[in-house]
């Protein structure tokens, strides 16, 4: 794939890529930009908080606020709290993860987005260099990209 050749070329020549836009997830592109996500940690925290929260709520309703005697069964009927805790935990993790995704990836309704080339969501792998931070001039980058098989290289003001 030409995108990989392009990434290798930038790495060997020490250019700094500003962003890569791809029509589908390409792990090498994510690695090349050294992007890291703590998504799973966030999800775990939501889950842990939900387990504690739901169990405490069930204990409070069933034992403290309004205890009901079902034929002498203990009011703290822990085993039968497990299923509802599981389901509500899953619900909390889902909602939490969706909000986190929306917040961190900045994906929300009505967002003003910046997309350098509209073909990036369809067929092209787009590597974006910012003149100020790329570490080389347009000619040097263009030559390296052409050499690694880029189909187009162009300069654009945003």
């Amino acid at each position, binding site marked *: *794939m030409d995108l990989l050749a392009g990434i290798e070329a930038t790495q060997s020549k020490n250019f700094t890529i500003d962003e890569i*836009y791809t029509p589908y997830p390409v*792990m090498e592109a994510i690695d090349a930009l050294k992007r890291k996500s703590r998504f799973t940690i966030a999800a775990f925290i939501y889950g842990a908080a939900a387990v504690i929260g739901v169990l405490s709520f069930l204990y409070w309703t069933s034992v403290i606020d309004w205890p009901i005697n079902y034929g002498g069964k203990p009011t703290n009927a822990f085993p039968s*709290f497990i299923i*509802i805790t599981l389901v509500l935990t899953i619900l909390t993790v889902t909602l939490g993860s969706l909000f986190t995704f929306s917040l961190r990836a900045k994906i929300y309704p009505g*967002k003003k*987005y910046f*997309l350098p080339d509209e073909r990036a969501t369809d067929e092209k792998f787009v590597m974006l260099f910012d003149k100020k931070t790329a570490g080389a001039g347009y000619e040097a980058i263009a030559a390296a990209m052409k050499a690694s098989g880029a189909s187009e290289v162009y300069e654009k003001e945003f």
Partner: protein
Amino acid sequence: MYKADVRGPLILGNKDYRQITSDIIAPIDNKAPGWWKVAMGVAFLLASIGFFALYYTVRYGLGTWNVNNSVAWGWEIINFVWWIGIGHAGTAFSIFLLILRQKWRTSINRAAEAMTVFAVMCAAIFPAIHMGRVWLAFYIFPYPNTRGSLWVNFNSPLFWDFIAISAYLLISASFWYFGMVPDFASIRDRAKTKLKKTIYGFLAFGWTGSTKEWLRYEGLSYVLGGIAAVLVVSVHSIVSTDFASSVIPGWHTTLFPPYFVVGAIFSGFAMVMTLMIVIRKYYHLEDYVTDSHLNAIAKILVFISLIMGTAYTTEVFMAWYSGNPYEMFTFFHNRLTGDYSFMFWAMVVCNAVIPQVMWSKKVRSNTTALFIISLIINLGMWYERFNIVVTSLSKDYLPSSWTTYSPTWVEIGIYIGTIGIFTIGVLFFFRFVPMIAISEVKSVLKPTEITEKH
């Protein structure tokens, strides 16, 4: 485990990325075909019958149904379990196959998830209306209320059901929607009219496909996939617990949770097969939903059919082996023989016997045969729920309360209505949403080192 070279190419016809987008969004770009309009008309008619039956129920009460003191659960619970079962395939497909890294899921998961959302919406109608006074359905929410903070019964499977199904609907709908966001962006960026650009632009939530977005997107998919897999198993286990935690012969058994979960996936996969064959045929997407895909679904169906056969046999065997006279009566005099024996044998033939013909490669490669078998399985799964719900209730411990049950036009009308609502949902899905996950299909187009690694 299975790479494309073992399974055959996942996408036929030497496509490039642009061609894939064009092929999949063609139904959105083109005008609605004639058959679509006719189908929509019929679906609206069915839905109207359902809405009238619902109105009639609300206006005149549950007395318009044939449920009675003995058979308190009739068609409503049968249809509820049937729809929920169908709704399980979306998640089963998307999530189990996502976690197991099965790449052939990519052409099918979108339609399966859509089906889940519509099926669960249809399912939710039944318990709500079965409550009697549906306008008071909010009583089931655990909220501090004017009745002295009397809480709902947190130990009741019926309450678990409510929470589990609400959560399931919300999670499947989010999983489905967020899966579509990159595809909406593709449509937005290729749209020729301003209206289309605005609508799909709004739906795309500003997606650009940058590495920053993809990284989190992948994180979200796997987190949701991982936890929703647990939910699939728990939701239908809970539905089965509605039955199993009672003392009714034929219901009170530990076999129920796995039996229900497998049965749900069975009916769901059959419905996925039905839909995929329709999509393939009428939208000419044979290059994406290949014979190899249908073959894979058929093999899964044969396997699950065997499990279903085992479950049916186990139930009958345990009724005899337990020596419990009530269980013996229910199975041997009220299911295998008796008033409802047709339902029992229809269930066995449709679910455990007929699908066995799919052992033959000839049948698995015959689309018409697969289509008919998928419909037979769904019919069989409906018989199974009728068999479970009605036979056990109709003749329980007290012969004085024995009765038979057949539905009124109102109950049939509500069921017909849900079929209409489901069909409307699916037809809108065909027309306005990419039926196949464009970005995911692109990722399996060229199984180079890149796509194999992650």
